[in-house]
Structure formats: structure tokens, C-alpha cells
């Protein structure tokens, strides 16, 4: 890597994570600071993602920078067969920072190797989405007052959910305990369980989503169980309503419990949960702005 880029959560040390979270806290106190005055950020979205793009572009704007870019690769030269390398080198002539989302896995890593301009990975296929992990960590620390020694229950699609895999890595510095709640077809892969074993992280696997597990948890991290992930549709029909959180299930949960979800939600959190003060998923998305302001300043070596 030639410049300081933000490509994958695996590369972040505990110190990196804590520094970015501390800076995100400063941005929450004061989001509008002209630290990017005179700088241009490019947002290259080879795959559309409105939520992530708006969050990053808002972050640049609130820092006083300017944004160029595209939100759909079909209008760019990549639809004419231009290589990613050429697109990145071309944009590097104009921008001080490149924020990119790509449908191919490893695209951000490769981009960071061909240019001197810092790259922020805003998602590369099913591989990494490290700014999401950073905002998850920020939300956890903010609601719990700490990251250490927490019990985190992950529910839903634990097989394909990159957010839960990255969160395990991000939390691995802080002695967590995990409950993995998923249908058999979507259970946590061996790779992540081996990672937990290697790092001395305790975890328990469940197929039933019960109040007993919820009542032990500090964080309940819900994810979407998608129909298209199932090879056996009968299995989907059997489990589709099992991993739905209803307000009544929270009656005896801990006071400090907070419910997170990377969004968009479909039906895995019933709407009656929204009014429960333990529901945190909308504020969680708001925290994404502060986390992204902090990440942008971090790769540009700007003191916050």
C-alpha cells in the first residue's frame, strides 16, 4: 500500500479503532468543521448504494470539502471496457481522496495499490465494508459506555452477512462474548468460528431465538434473512418468522440492551419495537456520518 488507505477492518489495530472512534465523538459534538477546505473527494460508486453514498458525501460536505463522482457505472467509461486501474488513475489526477464502492471483491485493495491517492473502501462485493463496522463499534461504545467485556447476540443471516463477520474482527480487541442465532443453513461459517477460537473469544451457537438469550445480551445485532439465500425454500418458509424480534420479547431484557441493525430492515424487527427506547438502529445510521468524517480525516492525516 503506497498511501494510507482504509480498505479492511482486519488491518486496523486496536489503537487505530480507538483513535477513529475518539475523533468520531468530536465530530458528533461538532459535525461542521472546515477541515477539508480546498480539497476534492471523489465518490466512485460502480454499484449503486444510496445510503452509503449520501452518508459519505454528507461527511465531505460537512467538513467543507467538495465532491465529484458518479453513482452508477453505466454512465462511465467502465461501461466502455475501461479497466478499474485506468479509471482510478484518471480520477487520481483530480481528487485528494477516493471513496469507492464496487461490485467486485478486492477492488478497493487493488485500487489502493495503483494510486498514491488514499482509498476508502465503501464496500467491495461481499468482502468488506469497514466504515459500517466502524459505525457499529461507535454505536456500541456510545450506548454501552465501553467496548470491553460485552455480550453481543447476532441474529439472522450469519453465513453471508459481511457486517457480522467484520464486527467479530472489530470487537476481537475487546474481550467480547457472542451468541450466534441463525437457522442451520445460515449459521456462522467455520472461518469466523476458528477466528474466535484463535483469539480466545467465547461464543455459543443457537438455532432458537429465545428471550433467555436476549436477556443476557448487551447488544442485539439483527440482520435480514433473505429468501434468495436459501437452497431449500421449505426451510425458508419454516424459519422466516423465527428470527423476528417483537417488542414483547424485550420485556425482561437488560436496561442497557440496545438493538442494532445495518439496515435496510424488511420484517426482521417488528414495527412495535421502534418505539422502545432500546431500539437504536436509526441513530446507528446517524452515527455513520461521524464515523465517516473521522475515517476521512484519518486517511488524510488531518488532526481533528
Amino acid at each position, binding site marked *: 500500500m503506497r498511501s494510507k488507505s482504509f480498505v479492511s477492518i482486519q488491518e486496523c489495530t486496536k489503537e487505530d479503532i480507538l483513535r477513529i472512534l475518539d475523533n468520531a465523538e468530536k465530530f458528533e459534538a461538532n459535525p461542521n468543521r472546515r477541515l477539508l477546505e480546498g480539497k476534492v473527494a471523489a465518490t466512485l460508486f460502480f454499484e449503486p448504494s444510496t445510503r452509503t453514498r449520501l452518508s459519505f458525501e454528507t461527511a465531505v460536505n460537512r467538513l467543507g470539502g467538495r465532491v465529484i463522482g458518479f453513482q452508477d457505472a453505466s454512465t462511465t467509461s467502465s461501461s466502455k471496457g475501461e479497466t*478499474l*486501474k485506468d479509471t482510478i488513475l484518471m480520477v487520481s489526477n483530480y481528487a485528494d481522496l477516493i471513496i469507492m464502492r464496487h461490485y467486485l*471483491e*478486492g*477492488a478497493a*485493495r*487493488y485500487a489502493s495499490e495503483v494510486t498514491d491517492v488514499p482509498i476508502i473502501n465503501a464496500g467491495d462485493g461481499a468482502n468488506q465494508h469497514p466504515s459500517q463496522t466502524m459505525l457499529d463499534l461507535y454505536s456500541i461504545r456510545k450506548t454501552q459506555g465501553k467496548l470491553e467485556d460485552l455480550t453481543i447476540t447476532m441474529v439472522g443471516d450469519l453465513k453471508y452477512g459481511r457486517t457480522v463477520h467484520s464486527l467479530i474482527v472489530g470487537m476481537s480487541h475487546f474481550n467480547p462474548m457472542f451468541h450466534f442465532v441463525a437457522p442451520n443453513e445460515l449459521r456462522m461459517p467455520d472461518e469466523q468460528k476458528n477466528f474466535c477460537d484463535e483469539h480466545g473469544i467465547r461464543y455459543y451457537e443457537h438455532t432458537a431465538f429465545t428471550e433467555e438469550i436476549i436477556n443476557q445480551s448487551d447488544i442485539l445485532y439483527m440482520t435480514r434473512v433473505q429468501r434468495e439465500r436459501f437452497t431449500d425454500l421449505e426451510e425458508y418458509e419454516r424459519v422466516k418468522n423465527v428470527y423476528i424480534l417483537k417488542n414483547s420479547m424485550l420485556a425482561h431484557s437488560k436496561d442497557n440492551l440496545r438493538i442494532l441493525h445495518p439496515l435496510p430492515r424488511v420484517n426482521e424487527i417488528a414495527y412495535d419495537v421502534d418505539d422502545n427506547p432500546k431500539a437504536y438502529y436509526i441513530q446507528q445510521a446517524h452515527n455513520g456520518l461521524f464515523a465517516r468524517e473521522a475515517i476521512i480525516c484519518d486517511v488524510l492525516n488531518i488532526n481533528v
Partner: protein
Amino acid sequence: MSALKNNKELQVAAIENGTVIDHIPPTELFKVATLLELDKVEATITIANNLPSRKCGRKGMIKISDKFFNDDEISRIALVAPNVILNIIRNYEVVEKKRVSLPDELIGLVKCNNPKCITNNEPMPTRFEVIDKEACVIKCHYCERKINKDDIIIK
């Protein structure tokens, strides 16, 4: 000739100088030849396969005259045939026996199995980290997919 001093009959003609790659599993012989890019070597090459072997039943063997491989070239073989032995021959004598071992990184040798990996969609060399030399498990530097020995596809 000194190589014959132990009275063993040679199954393949001896070479004066060069490299003899021995104990190649018969099914991997041609992959080893490909990995070493022997099609580009102009020296005399003898390839033998299904020779009887006391150690492993049958084996393949490649003799290349006047050719000495560097460690980087040799390490490629470990991908398909981790137990081969390279005999370095000078003046009909084995002057060195080398075992192969995987390097820490494989560049441009292996294809990534993930069709959505950037390396399968851009004109660029692949890059893998060898994460388990014993079991021969590699991990794509770009898409981070792990590939087990049996699923490795040589480019």
C-alpha cells in the same frame, strides 16, 4: 561412471550437469513441467513417468541438462508436488539435494476461484498469501477467499 557405482541400473540416461526432479507423483508430472515453464527451456529435457519407485509405487522424473532453477522457480512446484526432490548434478555427481517448500506468497501463479474477485476481471497478476504451508491453504490478497489444496487452479 560414478553415478553407476552402486550398481543400480539407471532407467533414464544420466546427465552431466543440470537438475533431476525426482519423486513426482505421476498425476502431477505435467503440471510440474508447466509450472517450471519447461516448454520455454531449450536445453535437453528427459521426461519419464510411471517409473517403479520403492518409496511411492510409481513416480515421475524430469531431467533437465544445464539448467539450475532459482528458489522462486522451485517453490512453485510445492503447490502440486510437495514431496519432490531436486538433485543438482555436476559432472555426473549429485552435489546437492533440495526439498521444495511453499513460499510465503504466490504471485501470478494461481487463479482465484472466486468469479467476483477483481483478479478475474482486470488484467492484473493474482496474489496469494500462503497461510498454511503444511496443508497448502492459500488466501487471495484481494478478495480474501481461502482456497484449499484440492481446489487450487494453476493459471
